[in-house]
């Protein structure tokens, strides 16, 4: 029984952690321009080379 309780609690923690990550990503603007981010990967940055 303690095994189950531990497992459930850790599942809850992992889930909450993932949720927290998503909420952070949302509020830090990472979902504001999905179209632009998809295109940006194609840009070569000469200053990086």
């Amino acid at each position, binding site marked *: 029984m303690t095994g189950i309780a531990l497992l*459930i609690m850790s*599942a809850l923690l992992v889930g909450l952690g993932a949720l927290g990550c998503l909420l952070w990503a949302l509020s830090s603007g990472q979902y*504001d321009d999905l179209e*632009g981010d998809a295109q940006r990967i194609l*840009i070569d940055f000469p200053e990086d080379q």
Partner: protein
Amino acid sequence: MGAIGLSGFRPELADDPSRYLKETSAGEERFDVLVKGARCAGCIAKIERGVKAVPGVREGRLNLSTGKLVVTGKSLKPETILRYIRDLGYDAQPFDAGEMLDAGDREGRFLLRCLAVAGFATVFTMGLTDAIWYGGGDLGGEARRNFFWLAGAVAIPATFYSGQPFFRAAWRSIRAGRAGMDVPISLALILSLGMSIYQTATDGAHTYFDASVMLTFLLLIGRYLDHRLRDRARGAARHLLAMQTLLVRRQAPDGTIQTVPARELMPDDMVMLASGDRAPVNGVLADRGTELDLSLVTGEVLPQAVAQGAVVQAGSVVTGMPVLLRATARVEDSLIADLARLLEAGQQVRNRYVRLADRAARAYVPGVFILSLAVMAGWLIAGAPLATAVTSAITILIITCPCALGLAVPAVQVVATGRLFRKGVFVKSGDALERLAQIEKVVFDKTGTLTVGNPVLCDRERIAPQILNRAARLARASRHPLACALAEAAGPGEAAGDVREVAGSGLERGTGADLERLGSAGWCGAENPGAVQLWYRHGSEAPVGFRFEDRIRPDARALVRDLEAKGLSVEMLTGDVPLIAARIAEEAGIAEWQAAVRPEQKARHLEALANAKIRTLMVGDGLNDAAALAMAHVSIAPGTAADISQKASDMVLRGGDLMPIAEAITVARKARRLVLENFALALAYNLTAIPMAALGMVTPLIAAATMAGSSLLVTLNALRLMGGGKT
């Protein structure tokens, strides 16, 4: 007419840059620019690097979805930044419409956050409780109750957090005395939580913690899709807001020039208009004559020469010499403002349209409440204990919660607008599709809609090639529409170097016997010019005339035939003269047409059609069509249309093809059929679920399975619109 979009406005910001600069928390300055025309990674790189090269700029970041470029740095010069971006080939406007847009963004982000919380809670709660529904017999009462409490501990706060959009909307509609879909939704959510707590506390078998979070999750998906559609519509409205923050150069009596917002102009103020500027207010030319492009006002393609003292209407674009305009009216009394008011009136007419989903809700909501009361009464009459009766009534409310109904419309509309977007039609609102499916008649504007809107040389066979080439050498030095058309007809070649532009007359080079002139009939010494617009004369040779005509779009005829095959009647309204109208109508295969129609007559014609209960699609592009577009049941504007016309219409075409209009009607009709099918599916689900719930046979497992199942079903049904092939 595409050349004169927003670019007609060139706000000079030098005098008052602070109007558009905001201070950031890091102590830097921030300048928001609306960039039009950026599409790809190359555009992003070009614009961001270009802006970075401007002195003072630390960083520029372009949001491709919204077209908003945020420039940060120290002591920014807005005017320089705008010029840099324009030099790169993109249209740029200072962004001053922040309030409204940010509100939209916040709302969308909040919905996403709710969605994330509800999604997490759904998975977690189902993991706990569904284990019990399947193999729960093995669990002892104590463990089982702990499982339920734990599920509740996650589900209750999650439902209250992510159910906020529904609770708020329900509260609003209750206060307004209306019963929207949100009332039964909120009630079902709260009651299912309450009943689950009661069941857990009394060691009952049926808790609905998982059902309540899943309900929230599924409903939020529909709500978010709907929000995305509306947000796009708001994005389109932004461009008009940018237009209204126009700045103009006013000349004070002592000759100094100030930059002021156009709305502060008073009658008798002097406004300086450079070539390319659009007149912000009605007025008269104070210092000299010039040439005006009236295409947005009257739909006429060719610039008109006007003399000093001539009356100029707001919206006209100066294409000739820079002039001083003496204002005769304020902005709100000028032509554009008149149109804006007409637009508003039209939009109010349109707001009377009741969306399919709302019509469904009106029938659905009272029905569900009456039903659940009837079931409760039935159990009590049959002598069942109060707890059983209340449980059954609540189960009905939970199971009939319009989950599938909430998805039925937005799912279809998102798929439909996505498909149309790929075909080159930008749909601004979901209910525009519903209205488009109902039309019986299509009314076209001529210039710029059925036709290309640019003059094309029409009698080149008659003209000797060497004369055409010599004339083209002159023409390439000018940006006058006729000169451009001539240069295009002659093909690529070199431009003459020493060309002088004589305002109101034309172009000339050389002297004496080698004098070459390209311009108006009188200036080139042509007699009996007739309908020939442009003349060329070399020395003492006889002048040669070039005749230009507007050309019909290549797919106009096919479109008209397609529309008629769909059972729609087609009509053409134009402000042009009957002779040209008759030719274009014949070429397009339109039997019913009217020529020499003024803008207000167009709008009245559309109103008359609406009063006769004929639902009409209006397709038009000019400023003169804007009122008619707003008045029509539904309207489409080509992508080259005036901004105000794009604002007034429900859909905007990308590119120069007309055929997407036929596609849009096909998709709209299919979408309507799918929405009705989805309603039928949701109804069928309820018809099977309600009797079971009334008899107390619904277990939480069945509730969860059927709710998810019906939502999945309507979504899959909506996806059928995606493939579709060619129809």
